[in-house]
């Protein structure tokens, strides 16, 4: 299962709205595990890159202060219905995931 849920819709005004939901703990490294008393190590997404037809439309640099299971939305111009939009994230522990969606 992909960690990314993404929807891209083209509006009448030629602007594409992209909404992305990623499942990720986004641990800050400041919280203790209630059962073991040990600090949960920082584990958060650092970078999210969104591309449309191979062109970068958004690069997000994140710190641990983005909420758990991050939500991100943005809008851009110049896309057609049926175009692909690709998103890729990398976290501070070296994990990554990517996903593609078709603009509707």
């Amino acid at each position, binding site marked *: *299962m992909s*960690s990314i*849920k993404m929807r891209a819709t083209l509006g009448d005004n030629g*602007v594409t709205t992209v909404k992305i*939901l990623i*499942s*990720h*703990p986004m641990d*800050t490294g*400041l919280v203790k595990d209630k059962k073991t008393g040990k600090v949960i190590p920082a*584990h958060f997404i*650092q*970078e999210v*890159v969104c591309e449309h037809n191979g*062109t*970068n*439309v*958004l*690069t*997000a*640099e*994140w*710190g*641990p*202060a*983005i*909420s*758990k*299971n*991050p*939500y*991100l*939305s*943005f*809008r*851009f*111009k*110049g896309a057609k219905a049926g175009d692909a939009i690709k998103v890729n994230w*990398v*976290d501070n*522990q*070296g*994990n*990554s*995931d*990517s996903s593609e969606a078709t603009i509707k």
Partner: protein
Amino acid sequence: MTSMKRRIFLKGSLATGAIGMAVSAGLITPRMALAAWPKEAFDATSVDSAVSSLFGSTALTGSDKIKIKAPDIAENGAVVPISIETSIDGVESISIIAEKNATPLTSSFVLGKGTESYIATRIKLGKTGSVIAVVKAGGKLYSTGKEVKVTIGGCGG
């Protein structure tokens, strides 16, 4: 149907750790781009040092062309929806800073050429304080703040 899917998604999110492991086992490719992640700015403990480390300057110009949409009172500081929109021309990046967080810089968004000056996300707020949007356009920095009150009890404000 939509709400059903959401349930499943939330359940799935509990297993994120396992997914992360699976991802790291298979799909990891070394990425040079991460070298660009501004560690110093994210580690900075004051608004000024975060801004200067991120942009190399603290010369912020107040602007009423930036609109921050955020709740006046956030019942749960762990999930505060924020959206930022600006009518300033030639925006290069939008950064969100939480004044009272231990490390104020929460995120920075670099926009592509056709990308509109609009960003929506959800951030964590440690306590009541300003949420500051810093917009970089044409080499200049513009900012606006909005006070968000964080209540911990969860019974409203």
